[in-house]
């Protein structure tokens, strides 16, 4: 409910915040005039457009959706899955340098498969182990992609 009300505001407010930050950085940081003016030009135009979008939203003349078809409400479970997937990805980014790509990807794949409703243990193991094997032998060993091995450094 809260998301459906605030959702349409997220993007224009983020644009205003980011543009404001970029312009302020230039002026407060005593950058060269050319650089300041360029940031002011782009930031100003972006903020102007964002204000128009917000005004349209306030007047109710912008539904905020990509089409005009009636949409069924999204079940709460889908949002739980969505947030969990994003959290998993963020956690993976933080953990890869520490525990390495092999363990991180394996755990992430198992968790994501379970979360998305896969219940067959052989399928979960086959996909997780298979994907990690493809990454290890295909990309790291064959193509020399330097993914961090983390705690498995020297073993892999």
């Amino acid at each position, binding site marked *: 409910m809260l998301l459906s009300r605030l959702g349409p505001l997220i993007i224009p407010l983020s644009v205003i915040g980011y543009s404001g930050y970029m312009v302020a950085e230039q002026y407060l940081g005593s950058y060269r005039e050319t650089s300041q003016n360029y940031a002011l030009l782009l930031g100003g135009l972006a903020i102007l457009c964002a204000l128009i979008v917000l005004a349209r939203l306030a007047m109710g003349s912008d539904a905020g959706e990509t089409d005009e078809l009636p949409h069924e409400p999204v079940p709460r479970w889908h949002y739980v899955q969505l947030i969990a997937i994003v959290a998993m990805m963020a956690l993976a*980014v933080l953990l890869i340098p520490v525990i390495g790509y092999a363990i991180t990807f394996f755990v992430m794949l198992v968790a994501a498969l379970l979360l998305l409703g896969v219940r067959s243990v052989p399928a979960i193991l086959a996909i997780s182990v298979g994907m990690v094997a493809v990454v290890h032998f295909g990309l790291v060993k064959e193509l020399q992609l330097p993914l961090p091995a983390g705690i498995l450094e020297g073993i892999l």
Partner: protein
Amino acid sequence: MMNGAYDGLLMLLSVVWVVPIGVFIGMTFGAVPGLNKSGMLAILLPVLLAMPPEMGLVFAMSLYAGGEVGNAFPAVVLNIPGDASAAVTALEGYQMTLRGDGAKALGMCVMGSTIGAVLGGLASLVAAPTLGAVALRFSYPEICIIVLFGLAAIAQVSSGGLAKGLMMGFAGMLLSTTGTDPMWGTFRGTFGSIYLFDGLPIIPCLIGLLGFSELLKMIEGGITVNRVSQAREVGLKGVINGMRDTFRYPFDLLRSSLTGIIIGIVPGAGGTVSTFLSYQQALSWASPEAKKQFGKGSPNGLIAGDTANNADVGGSIVPLITLGIPGSSAAAVLLVIMAYHGLEVGPRLLSTAEGASVAYAIIWSQFVSAGLLVVMGGLLATFAYRLAFLPVNTMVPVIMVAALIGSFSQNQYIFDMGVMVVFGIIGFFMKSYGYPPIALLLGIILGPMFEENLLRTLRLGGGTPELFFERPLTLFLWFLLFLTLGARPALQLLRNYRNRRIGDPVKAQQ
């Protein structure tokens, strides 16, 4: 130019073996509901970048062409469009399947797509050198206006409206200033991170905005696993008959191809717009008898949608090659590949020997792809719709890992994986509330080109913007830009005025 065309053909011959692989993979991905073409290209970007430039670009074009046909298979047989551009195909094709003409409908889709691809290829072959010759006259101010023109065109045709599109375009250009100032060497918008000193990494942004965000939308919409009990019999003989019957509709084929090409050339419009516009045209041009068939399995409607969908591919690479402005999200991926390999992206591409050869290799590859669409499409049509039964919930985690690795591969920073996740979330919110991700992406990609040319113009003009208004070519481009920005609001005002005059207050308010 002729040398470029010949060299391009020779270049294509050296990498032609990737075309059937690309068409096959494209058709296969295209047949999986939920995976759109730009998302597929974004996920496969690390593979495309690892190849030599000509091979990567030809492979990407083949994937693009194959994906446009593959999305029709489950649409016709199971009423499950592979992506939004196959909605018209599902509307008419599935009705034909219900009355026992499924194989014929598939044959028509494949043949219509092939003819659209050939005519789209011909259009790009003719239009690219012509427009390229004009583009060679462009100097710094013209290039600036062309970048603005690209953003304005995308903003104008995007579903969210002009203000949303422009806002994202300018925000993208502002984001592109992240990193070291090209003129003074100061750091801008880096938030103190050394990983951003070289600028915002484009590939993680692209994978996030086009690929990961699509995955999140898929999860939000609910991952459904289609059951095999829905399978239907589709025979090869029926498919061949359908291919033959397509030629009974020559006017639909030509008109839809033309629509697809023109819409493809307009930046940002893309396949979905061209299919619906072409379908609407087919409806308005149809005879009263044929009109009754629309929505009930009309071959005219089916051919109109699929032909325009593939002709759009040829159209979308014209602005990419000649102006450096992609006509679609998939063409934006091609632009990133070109830029990654150091090709002179923009109006100068066709003036360099290597650039011209690569550009023509891309153009020629469309004809090879088109030839393969008939053969492979005809064969795959009989069973590829079964790919809609693939359990998408097992594919999503695999694509997540691929997206992470793809983001890492360019600079080999873990930081870039984080950038991908952040832009995936941004892309998700943008898609959810009608903001065009392609506008943001275009701003990020073209921002440095705009800044460089703007500063040069100002320096040449002694600090004043007078060079922007001196040459007839710049004045003409300004006129085009204002026409692009002003045409729709002006038409709306005119319509309101007319409605008010005839006394219809409801229509006037709308």
